[in-house]
């Protein structure tokens, strides 16, 4: 197991990267798999799988409680991973890095702990028209419990945030919660600008970086945000692990969320004293293997270099937009920004009048994995005027040949449905 060599300037050696991902070497329906669903979940490099194995085979023990050797190793591996993740996101302190089971729990933690402690009837929060359900439903739950108002920042026609009335919409808002990257349109939002606007208006901001962190250099200090949530399984990490990062003084002032072991300093019959950060928000046995696995994923990505990742995805997205539009013309609609400066490699496609679910079924016959559906963003789908899209999303292991195979398969799907007697 070797780490890919850091090569910030050189283009990505996708063949070498692909070889690191065991699943990408499998066949589906007699075709080599073409995995274009990394926006749903990424594949995992051998390094991460091996790290999980090594954890279970060599140091598996509960953490923070045992004085014996393997418990000590498990504890320090967990805290090392936390420190690695801290550096990866540019956070000032590892005690601000809180492990959850996924990004959804991270956002719910804010909604339950910070939200219930701070928001009441008459208060307002601002979200955007392109949010994932994970950044909508927790606020709707809070809104219906507390009478908090939810405002929706609109989009431009090409799927970017429409900032025209931002300041007005932020007026009286306590929290601005927005995605750094859309899982449907690929849109990258101007995080620093949004954070500044929020602070200007006296609001805090929460960045849902689930679709950004795997693909871009990320620095919470440069972003100047207050909270950030992301999820491990989309960034080469295992399932069952997510992260909430928050500014220490905010986290310190918040009441605990889940109660139980690990998150306490003391418990008596009369009550409990919460533990220090980060453990205060980590109740129960943590996802130990998953934390350590996410640490390995971060090492893997760092070895490639996030600048290189981004450069690769810009080039590949550019190629995809160009070749797909050229070949399929009016048969094809790709939603979202057209300029790769404003977007990542998430391509939401409508092809002729073929329902995305049917389209993805046909692509599957060629081993091509794309997602069909509402992508957990129904309010956005409604705005786009579609019930579903077929979404192809690229990552470090995809290359132009994957795009070409997708393109061919789209044409074949068109054939298949038009040649069937009606």
């Amino acid at each position: 197991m070797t780490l890919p060599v850091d090569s910030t300037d050189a283009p990505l050696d996708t063949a070498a990267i692909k070889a690191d991902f065991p699943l990408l070497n499998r066949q589906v329906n007699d075709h080599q798999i073409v995995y274009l669903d990394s926006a749903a979940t990424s594949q995992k490099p051998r390094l991460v799988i091996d790290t999980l194995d090594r954890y279970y085979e060599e140091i598996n023990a509960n953490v923070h409680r045992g004085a014996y050797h393997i418990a000590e190793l498990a504890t320090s591996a967990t805290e090392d991973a936390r420190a690695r993740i801290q550096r990866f996101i540019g956070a000032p302190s590892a005690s601000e890095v809180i492990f959850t089971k996924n990004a959804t729990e991270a956002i719910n933690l804010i909604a339950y702990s910070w939200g219930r402690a701070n928001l009441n009837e008459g208060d307002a929060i601002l979200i955007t028209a392109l949010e994932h359900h994970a950044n909508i439903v927790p606020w709707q739950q809070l809104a219906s419990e507390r009478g908090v108002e939810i405002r929706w920042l609109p989009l431009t026609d090409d799927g970017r945030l429409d900032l025209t009335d931002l300041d007005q919409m932020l007026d009286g808002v306590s929290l601005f919660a927005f995605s750094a990257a859309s899982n449907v349109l690929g849109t990258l939002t101007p995080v620093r600008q949004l954070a500044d606007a929020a602070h200007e208006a006296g609001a805090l901001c929460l960045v849902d970086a689930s679709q950004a962190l795997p693909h871009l250099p990320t620095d919470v200090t440069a972003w100047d945000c207050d909270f950030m949530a992301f999820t491990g399984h989309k960034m080469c990490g295992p399932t069952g692990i997510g992260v909430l990062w928050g500014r220490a003084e905010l986290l310190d002032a918040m009441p605990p969320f889940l109660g139980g072991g690990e998150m306490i300093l003391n418990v008596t019959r009369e009550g409990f004293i919460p533990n220090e950060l980060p453990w205060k928000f980590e109740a129960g046995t943590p996802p130990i293997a998953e934390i350590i696995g996410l640490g390995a994923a971060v090492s893997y990505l760092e070895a490639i270099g996030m600048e290189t990742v981004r450069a690769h995805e810009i080039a590949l997205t550019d190629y995809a937009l160009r070749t797909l539009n050229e070949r399929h013309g009016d048969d094809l609609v790709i939603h979202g920004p057209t300029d790769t400066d404003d977007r990542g490699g998430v391509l939401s496609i409508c092809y002729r009048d073929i329902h995305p679910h049917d389209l993805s079924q046909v692509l599957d016959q060629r081993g091509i994995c794309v997602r069909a559906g509402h992508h957990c963003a129904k309010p956005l789908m409604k705005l786009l005027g579609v019930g579903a899209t077929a979404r192809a999303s690229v990552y470090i292991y995809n290359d132009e040949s994957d795009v070409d195979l997708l393109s061919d398969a789209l044409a074949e799907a068109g054939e298949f449905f038009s040649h069937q007697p009606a």
Partner: protein
Amino acid sequence: MAGLEDLYREIILDHYRNPRNRGELETPPAHMAEGFNPLCGDEIQVFLHVDADKICDMSISGQGCSISQSSASMMTTAVLGKTVDEARQVIRAFKVMMSIHGDDLDGSEHDHSDESVGSDVSLGDLEALRGVVKFPVRIKCATLAWNTLDQGLSEATA
């Protein structure tokens, strides 16, 4: 493409392209039931006019893939004009056909009494949907209209 013919039979594509009984009915007298397939975003509205225990009018609106749309269309032709009890028998027979991988999580064994009930009923054109069972994720597409009808019948006759 090999395999897909099992799924996309001619009659299915026909119902998809030319859906029968499409549209909305006035409520009341009709009753509207709504169903969602959280998997793929398909939404369906089933409008039902039940009079004297008979489905005297029925229509479908919403949007979805070929399987969910054609299944809904075929469903209307199968149950329109039938009594509520007869319609329930068709629903059951259809669900039995679709149940190899189970639509819901009621354990792994099938209830054989259900199967015998189902087997009395001829499904006609609906047999074309049998191939869906080979594509387990699509079962929810095929059964969406039926679950919504089931719910609508309960509500309309409550």
